[in-house]
């Protein structure tokens, strides 16, 4: 099995869909000649040409809106948004058009557009380059949202996103683009809309996704040293959420910590906490504890390490859960 980074796995996954389905095309800012600011589309314009790897004019609404039109004509556009903080000019097309097309047409039409968004912090960058806006999309029905945390998932989930009949937003954990791992290119990973239990445990469950998955695993290892057995679930899909897997875990462990980089207030952790509190009410030994960003715009680079949930923040949350 080849070893590759997440960025390379996405690149290979995109290459596979371009190769396999002539209806697919990539579009975005600087994805052609340059190969994207993160080089995720490197070499693809060279190999598939400017009609299938399209450097668009600079307008996010234009990218999403024309992708919808292309999808109506039978194409399968995969749009790149350059950074999380720059998706908002395209928010209207995503929320009022892309998400609703199927319902609007009583199921007659669909626009299986894929939107790739590098997201999250920890890269020491400037404003608008470190955000986690996933909750702003999850609330809107009609969209699916996934986020791979490792090369294997990246390679397959991007392909599964393109195959889905529904529009899918793929949030790519940008600070993990260089994370390496083995990729089995012959056997697809299971349903991209399901959660994966990465580590079994008996005393508490930690749910994380995207960039925080390695952090959650590290925290679980650290807790083990203190004699606590922590189950770690990689959510993988933010809409829908695989509540069955999470509930089953919490029914066993009785404690849940949910971690994400996005601000806690109004974040997707609230949805998980609310639903698991309902589903596992009688089994919960402690309230669901959320670990997330603070209620502030993502802070400047020099202080982001104090903002981002890290191992200690997750351990502290576990402490609080065990205090009950």
């Amino acid at each position, binding site marked *: 099995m080849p070893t590759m980074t997440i960025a390379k796995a996405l690149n290979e996954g995109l290459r596979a869909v371009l190769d396999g389905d002539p209806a697919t095309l990539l579009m975005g800012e600087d994805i052609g000649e340059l190969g994207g600011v993160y080089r995720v589309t490197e070499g693809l314009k060279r190999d598939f040409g400017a009609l299938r790897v399209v450097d668009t*004019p600079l307008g996010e609404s234009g990218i999403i809106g*024309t992708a*919808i*039109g*292309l999808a109506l004509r039978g194409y399968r556009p995969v749009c790149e948004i350059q950074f999380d903080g720059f998706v908002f000019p395209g928010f209207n097309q995503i929320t*009022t058009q892309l998400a*609703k097309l199927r*319902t609007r047409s009583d199921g007659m039409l669909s626009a299986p557009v894929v939107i790739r968004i590098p997201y999250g912090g920890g890269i020491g960058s400037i404003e608008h380059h470190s955000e986690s806006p996933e909750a702003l999309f999850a609330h809107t029905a*009609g969209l699916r949202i996934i986020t791979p945390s490792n090369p294997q998932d990246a390679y397959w989930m991007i392909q599964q996103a393109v195959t889905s009949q529904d529009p899918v937003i793929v949030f790519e954990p940008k600070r993990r683009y260089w994370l390496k791992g083995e990729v089995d290119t012959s056997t697809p990973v299971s349903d991209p809309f399901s959660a994966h239990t990465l580590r079994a445990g008996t005393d508490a469950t930690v749910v994380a996704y995207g960039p925080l998955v390695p952090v959650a695993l590290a925290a679980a290892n650290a807790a083990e040293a203190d004699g606590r057995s922590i189950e770690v679930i990689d959510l993988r899909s933010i809409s829908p*959420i695989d509540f069955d897997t999470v509930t089953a875990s919490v029914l066993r462990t009785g404690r849940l910590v949910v971690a994400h980089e996005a601000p806690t207030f109004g974040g997707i952790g609230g949805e998980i906490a609310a639903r698991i509190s309902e589903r596992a009410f009688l089994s919960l030994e402690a309230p669901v504890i959320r670990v997330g960003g603070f209620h502030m715009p993502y802070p400047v680079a020099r202080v982001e390490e104090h903002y981002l949930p890290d191992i200690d923040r997750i351990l502290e949350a576990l402490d609080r859960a065990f205090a009950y």
Partner: protein
Amino acid sequence: MNGSRLPTAEFEAEDVARGPDVDEAGSSGTDDADTLHILSEQGELGSTLTARVGGEVVDFSPYVRADDAEHLRSLYSDMYLIRRFDQESTALQRQGQLALWVPLTGQEGAQIGSGRALQPQDYAFPTYREHGVALTRGVEPADLLRLFRGVTNGGWDPREHNFHLYTLVLAAQCLHAVGYAMGLQRDQLADPSLPPAASIAYFGDGASSEGDVHESMVFAASFKAPVVFFCQNNQWAISVPSTVQTRVPLAQRAAGYGFPGIRVDGNDVVAVEAVTRWALEHARSGEGPVLIEAYTYRMSAHTTADDPTKYRLSEDERQWRARDPLLRLDTHLRSTGQADDAFFEDLDARARAMTTGLREAVLSMRVPDLEDRFASVYADPHPLVQEELAFFREYQAGFADDGQVS
């Protein structure tokens, strides 16, 4: 009521608050060489079939079909039928059978003229007012009422008619039309035996201010997409006159993107058809996009919920009645002997036939269950939707037991 900072009503700065110094070429805006007009208000065919587009004079005569009596009668028929349909729909709304209606009266020339210029392989992206275009695309008129009856957000299968669903978020459909045109381009390259095709994006003078119209034009120009932008400048965006959106004819926008823009007398169905045929051919032949501004007038209210007496003069409305697109073709057909009383009587009968069943059609429209709505959110199974549907069924069943709710 007077402050230190801001002038109040008495101290009005007309210029800032936008006064009458609008640089529009004439209030009707249809009196210059940049505007194509063929059939006059008096019902006479003009002899100049040219207009300036950008710097150049374009000869539209190859696209004018004014010498074909049969064709002119059919244009008139379409305009007449859709106006009658519009009146009937307005009545249905007044009777409480529709939640709302969006009348097109006054815009039949722009809509029938452009719609009839389309070929079957072309694809139209309407706003919410393009009932006339819908007619030319073979959409069943009653189906247009489903949306306003509140039983669907769609109403017809766009793929059957190459006529997209109505889009209510202003300007959003312009980008879809450009993307669709980009798809047509690619199809054509992959299979040159396909008939050349274009898409057409309808939008209004109000919508022209939205960022999405700009991005559509930027993308269309950049990719030389085969798309025609068709702006019906009916001079009003609800209560706001088009002079608030622009001080110059909207057609001039196109030059800024490097493609042709032309204003046409929107109440002249002959000119609208010609200019649209020209524009579509331009687009289909790989020359890129065109912007058409059809200068017309919304003779009725914005919607049945609107009261135009609040914001416009009845004098204006009166003046525009004289410019009615139906009236002038009626005059032309009669005065040239191309249509006789029998034609008009027959047409009236057809209109009656078309509108007769309408009320019943509306009354018999199937009201969906909320359950139906769960089915169209996603194509593939979705656990949350399934869970909520299960809850809803159980919840509804609870009432059935209680006998409270059906």
